[in-house]
């Protein structure tokens, strides 16, 4: 996909649709896999559902694709319910977690499969398959056996196979989870560029928030079948709606605080700090402050208003250093700095270096 073909940017995007989920529920025996989930995906939008194993994200994707029925609620494409449409009539492209490439077909036959199902003549569909392979950077691989491909190549074939039918919505199940870390980072950028270019409406699920943040326009966080929060990655990070969101997204120390409207007061070991709130307007009173590692910094122990603590551990994370610092009242915070500023066992002062911060009310 590094070498996109010329015609792609001009592709008519009228085939792509908008997707709405309304109060979708799905039970497996006693467990509620998806619990009254409502979600909207605009035409051309990239939305990621992020959640841990068992959060119901894959079930949601399978319901949208039509492989799994919803017990109640509705799935709508461009405002019309598609509940009665079997998967083969939804015109959705899906990229499976393990790619689900047909092992007995060649790469080109795999890619052309959806066209074959639509009755496109053989010569035509193979020509289009080769063009699609070219658009994902695999020109000339058409005759190969799928077993001979590397993980990243299989991923591209699966993508080409899903895109060739010009899907109204593209669905991706953990699209990057089988790739090694280096390839994974490259593929994030390539995926986003490709989707932008083709202006597809895409819904993908992942357990990896970095994948989601790197690719998606908006991210929906799911836990135990429920939607916790949906919004642009920055909003989820800077202004989480609940403690669960704050803890799932990025690293954070959650400490008790008092919400005073526009400011929050955090007291640790008798030392009070007054900080601006990122998204004020919630109820006032007792609350929880979300302290991100990069919002904290070191200060000399005698710095006024600094919290005193001991460095318990230091970790080198490439571009930065991360420290575990134990403060008073049993609070341990994570601090990150770009330079090495302290060692294990050091007595340090901790201060807030970046405002505003997020406050949640459980």
């Amino acid at each position, binding site marked *: 996909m590094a070498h996109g073909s010329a015609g792609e940017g001009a592709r008519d995007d009228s085939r792509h649709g908008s997707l709405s989920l309304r109060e979708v529920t799905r039970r497996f025996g006693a467990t509620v896999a998806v619990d009254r989930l409502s979600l909207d995906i605009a035409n051309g939008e990239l939305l990621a559902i992020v959640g841990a194993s068992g959060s119901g994200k894959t079930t949601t994707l399978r319901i949208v*694709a039509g492989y799994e029925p919803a017990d109640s609620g509705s799935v709508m494409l461009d405002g019309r319910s598609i509940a009665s449409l079997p998967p083969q009539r939804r015109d959705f492209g*899906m990229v499976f977690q393990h790619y689900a490439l047909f092992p007995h077909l*060649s790469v080109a036959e795999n890619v052309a499969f959806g066209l074959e199902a639509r009755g496109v003549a053989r010569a035509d569909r193979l020509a289009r398959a080769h063009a699609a392979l070219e658009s994902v950077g695999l020109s000339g691989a058409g005759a190969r056996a799928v077993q001979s491909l590397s993980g990243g190549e299989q991923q591209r074939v699966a993508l080409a196979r899903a895109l060739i039918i010009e899907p109204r919505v593209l669905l991706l199940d953990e699209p990057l989870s089988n790739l090694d870390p280096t390839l994974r980072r490259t593929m994030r950028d390539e995926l986003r560029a490709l989707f932008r270019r083709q202006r597809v409406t895409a819904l993908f699920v992942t357990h990896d928030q970095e994948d989601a943040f790197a690719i998606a326009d908006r991210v929906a966080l799911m836990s135990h079948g429920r939607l916790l929060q949906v919004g642009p990655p920055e909003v989820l990070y800077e202004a989480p709606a609940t403690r669960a969101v704050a803890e799932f997204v990025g690293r954070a120390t959650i400490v008790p605080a008092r919400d005073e409207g526009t400011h929050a007061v955090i007291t640790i070991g008798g030392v009070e700090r007054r900080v601006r709130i990122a998204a004020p307007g919630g109820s006032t009173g007792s609350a929880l402050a979300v302290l991100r590692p990069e919002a904290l910094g070191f200060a000399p122990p005698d710095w006024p208003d600094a919290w005193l603590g001991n460095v318990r551990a230091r970790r080198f994370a490439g571009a930065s250093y991360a420290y575990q610092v134990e403060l008073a009242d049993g609070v341990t915070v994570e601090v990150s700095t770009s330079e090495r500023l302290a060692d294990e066992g050091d007595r340090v002062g901790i201060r807030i270096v970046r405002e505003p911060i997020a406050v949640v009310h459980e």
Partner: protein
Amino acid sequence: MHESRVETASRARPSRHYSSTAGALLLTALLLWAVAYPNAAVVAGSFAKGLDYWRTFAASPADREALWTSLWISVVSVIAACVIGVPLAFLLTRRAFLGRRVLQAVATLPAALPPLVGVVAFLFLYGESGVVTRTAQAVLHLDTPPWTLSGAWAIVFVHAYTLYVYVYLFVSAGLERYDGTLDEAAAGLGASTLRRLVRVTLPMLTPALVGSMLLVFMSSLGSFSAPYVFGGGLRVLATQIVATRLNGALGVSYVETTVLAVSAVAALVVLRWLEGRRRYVSAGKGATAARMRLRSPVARAAAPLAATFIVLILVLPHAMVVLVSFARNGAWTTQVLPPEYTLDNFRRLMTDPELWRPVGNSVAMAAIATAADVIICAAAAWLIVLRRFPGRWLLATLVALPWAIPGTAIAIGLASTFNRTDLFTLRLLLVGTFWILPLAYFVRGIPLVASATEGSLRQMDPSLEDAARGLGAGWWMVLRRVTIPAARPGLVAGATLAAIMAVGEFVASVVLYTHANRPISIDILSQLRAFDFGTAAAESTLLICLVLIITLVARVPPRAPVT
């Protein structure tokens, strides 16, 4: 993990369409009728006079002897097969020596012998007037043959030769999959060779070993041709059933059949339980241990000699059958080797309609039975593996059932059920017609085709069907382009086994054949009875060729993918 549980569950998806539930119902009904009903009829028949038949059975010394002999011969056969099969598997997978490749190539040869042909070959080699027997007699200057190929030990001898292949194949496969780093780890922890074998290797191989022991036991218990030909006065259950039936004591023959079937099923349950207790999955991928060269110079010198000797023993039966097929009928009397050779046997086989008929019968009946097996079992395997419907366990049990029931018992069941037409009891008169043998072959082939096909479908990534549907494929295209290609390896392998079994089938045939539909195996037996050894050998050679042809046809690769 919850997610993976859902994924596993989704492999077998509830059928949204009534068509697959209806299909499952139809298939289950058909199998209940063809597989379960005849066996149930036998059990019911054994109680037709209350416990009278059972009392007769219990009071008969002949029956008690038959049961006891069947059981101990089977146990000894298992031991003998393991004694040959396990070391051979270790030797061929773990050691490198001169002659290994040749030995490996012929190691499975005995399994390619149709049951009766193996017996015929042993007769020519080790029988009273056999080549090996006469050679030994001449070398030792004896007046009488040094041994007679008769009685229990003769049967065990034949069993060991033909059935060790199961042990060898299973244990070799286990060793191929075996993670060699486990041995390295044990060695690194200070374990001696013997300790590694006892504490690490053998426990890991238990499932393979138990699985093959089960096969050998069941085959021995149901074995008919070896006791029939070499038994002498010895009674085993399988032959006793046929004898009792010929004497007209139907009720008692039902009791004997029930006892034989129950013994087999009991062995199955016990060994499966043993196997289940010891099933390990290696945590890592590991690597197969490399073959080691023999170290001691004596072993290195002895290995090629020993290999040559074993290869000779393994090839000899086939060679002997082929050799005798060129011997002039009646000319081979007291000589070590047949004195006169001719093409007459084959010429007559091709020109005499009476001799050609069994060949045509066997081929036609095997083709019909295998075709039916393929259609029924493909549908059954698809339903069992990929669909969820009430009564799935019943369908799965029905396709596995004929495997647990010896051929003689299956034949008696069919003979007692399809002996008249009666709509109320769903009986159809097939006994005495052509169709009873294809039916018997079909029933015996079901577990072979079904289990192989189920295996292939279980290996298929279940999201392939989803992917095809998501790309717009209707049910027919999904079936044609995705599911059938995925099932194909198992379907072909199973059909090959079923066709090989059917073309040389003897055990059920001997109970059910008529003169008009007699298969090759039955005709071989009558030629032997008439001392037309040349004709019997020519027919046996033809049977070996048919097996070879079936194997070769199955190897033809599917249409190569085109782009």
